């Protein structure tokens, strides 16, 4: 829990700083894929591994996954219809037969209509989501963070000792 909270604080800190735009955008995009994937599946394990191995912002990824899980829930029926169409396409049948009998691939549960539909949607949205999240973060920093830092309240707060202590702590342990 502490680790999770730390990740969330880091996410907020990074979001309000000038650095790590790509890490945040990638984390949120991978969170989208995570949200659309079933909890027990190999693609979830792969995405989690990617999040852990690469320097992707974990807090952003988990927050995004939490949000997109609800979106995926609402998207179940259209995903089922899309997956059904794909899985019933006769030209793809031989490919699916091969995939189904290959090692590890069946662990993606691609043979389920909802999983297949959600997987297609999440993979298609992934690059667009990355670009969109990056733009939104930049815009947020310009239109919200910069303006907020210009306010007298913030300036007054940064002049306090509490903020000084926080900065010292952040330099040492952050």
């Amino acid at each position, binding site marked *: 829990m502490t680790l999770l909270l730390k990740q969330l604080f880091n996410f907020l800190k990074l979001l309000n700083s000038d650095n790590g735009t790509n890490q945040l955008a990638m984390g949120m995009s991978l969170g989208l894929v995570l949200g659309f994937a079933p909890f027990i599946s190999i693609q979830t394990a792969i995405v989690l591994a990617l999040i*852990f*191995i*690469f*320097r992707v912002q974990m807090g952003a990824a988990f927050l995004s996954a939490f949000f997109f899980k609800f979106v995926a*829930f609402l998207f*179940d*029926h259209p*995903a*089922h219809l899309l*997956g*059904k169409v794909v*899985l019933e396409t006769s030209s793809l*049948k031989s490919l*699916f*037969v091969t*995939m*189904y*009998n*290959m*090692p*590890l*691939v*069946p*662990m993606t*549960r691609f*043979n*389920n*209509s*909802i*999983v297949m*539909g959600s997987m297609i949607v999440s993979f298609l949205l992934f690059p667009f989501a990355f670009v969109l999240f990056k733009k939104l973060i930049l815009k947020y920093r310009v239109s919200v963070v910069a303006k907020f830092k210009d306010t007298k309240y913030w300036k007054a707060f*940064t*002049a306090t000792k509490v903020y*000084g202590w926080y*900065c*010292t702590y952040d*330099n040492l342990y952050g």
Partner: protein
Amino acid sequence: MTEQIQKPAKKIKGPIRWEAIVPFLIISLVIGLYFHFFFDGHLRRGLEWAGYKAIGAEVNIGQLKTSFFNASLRIQNIEITDAEKPTHDSLKIGDIRFSMLWDALLRAKIVVNEAAVEQIAFGVLRKHPGKVAPPDPVSNEPGFAAEQAAKLKAEALETAQGQAGDNVLGDLISLLGGTDATAQLEKLQDSMPSKAMLEAFDKDLKAKQAKWDEKLKTLPQGKDIQALGDRLGKVKSKDFKSAQELQTSLQEVDAILKEGDGKFKQVQSVAAELQSDLQVLDTQYKTIEVQIKTDIRTLEQHFRIPKLDAKALTMAIFKRYLSPYQAKFNRYKALAEKYVPPNLLTKGKSNDDEIPIQPHPRETGISYEFGRPNSYPLFWVKRTGVSSQAGLSPEAGNIKGEILNITSNQALIGKPTTALLAGDFPDKQIMGFLFKLVMDYRKSESEIDYSLKVNSYALSGKDLVQTPDVQIAFQKATGSMDINGKLLGLKNLTLNFANSFSQIDYAIIAKNEIADQILKAIFQGIPIVTLNVKASGILPAVNLSVNSNLGPELQKGFEKQLQAKIDEARKKVQAHIDQEIGKLKAQVDAELSKLKGQVEGKVKQTQSQLDEQKKQAEAKIDLAKKDAENQGKKQLEQQGQKALDDLKKKFGL
């Protein structure tokens, strides 16, 4: 003044999180340690809990061992408590072990080449009594209470019927002893519903009679109809001097006719009312006749007048013997109803009013199986070897057999699931046990064939009938059993259960000496007793038919002694009914027919009188019309003759 805090320039980190290696290794180690030290124990307790929840009786697992690298599982000393006898296990299995193929596991499938089940024992005494789940608490869901009440009522009725069946022999024997029912019959005379109904009907009938007497008085009487006839007689119907006179007569007849019509309609409406009243009385009377028959049956039951019927006698003898089997069947049926998916079993009647509100389930989608010849199905246990050696424990048996192809997709592997187990339990004197099972789901309608044979098993001290009047038991006997049947579409069940008992040492005691002699003579003449049970029907409603060679023999044996007594008792009951109700019934019959005759006669008479007057009036009108026509013709002829005469005069002819 703000103090500017100078942050030291941080070293830019690469894209890979190298610093996570150590935490990752620690987490992996913790997981590894958990699986090594704790997982088996948790899985064992989980399985025990799941087993208790599913079966409703304590399940114990002695030892459980899993191996990740071998993908294997070994469970030892599985004990399933007998819910009806918690001090004993219903089943004990010494060892179950299997290992899954990693090749299949990597494809998200479970395939077991060979599983082994060893050391099977039944009815083993437990170290401590097992826990048995209490019955489900009564739910407050709407409609549930009514459902439960109906269920309890049905169960109570079934129990009462069962007890009645058990008492058939007792009734026969008490009748054989002879009982005087006359005194009791007198006490019962006021408690016959049919008598009360007849009295109420008689009262009703009398009220109706008074009402109809009043109603008949309002009907046109003979003098009224005669007055109409007299008026009609006075009306002129010929020799009209003028058209005015004719018209007056016609108007007079028309008025009489209308008056007659009104009276006729009044009679008709009364006749219709009478008809409907008579119909109601007839219906009430029929209900009373049905009640009289019910009363006769009730009296026969009250005085325990038995039926000398082979089937009823068979049920009476074997009810106690079959009830444990029936209880087991009901228990497994309840388990099937609980766990088999609703689309496979009909669970109760669909009643839109009683559908409970429930959240909409999340979409589950369709899972496709893209199999190909020789590929793995989702689940497949190719062979399960079953073996058990008698002697290792007193309750263990010699069992050898195999279960082949337990799978989630029979069509893919092209084989049905089969089981063949054979052996014996020497300690329990069960010899020549053979169990065969074929479960074929490849067809559109699944087919399960099963058969169980036991060449011989020992019976001792088996009570068949235990009533205060009679006790019959197999002190010692050797039984053999053959059960076979089919289950189609997991719904349509047929079962044939053939049981025979030989080398029987009977224990028969009857209070009545004659009964004692009869029963001993009958049973001594039957060295082999057969019992055949046939069940068929759509689950859960299964019809049972029980037959035995004992039934006809008992019927024959008792018939000579008892038929006359039964007939005599029946006659007594009939006479009592006749005495109590017959007089009243005859009186009511007479009153009813009198009322019918009286009222119907009166109505018919009035109707016919009115009809007569109507005909007379119509004849009068016809006569008047004809006369008027004749007179008109004559006038025309006279006028024509006069005109001709005038013309002749004009021309001087």
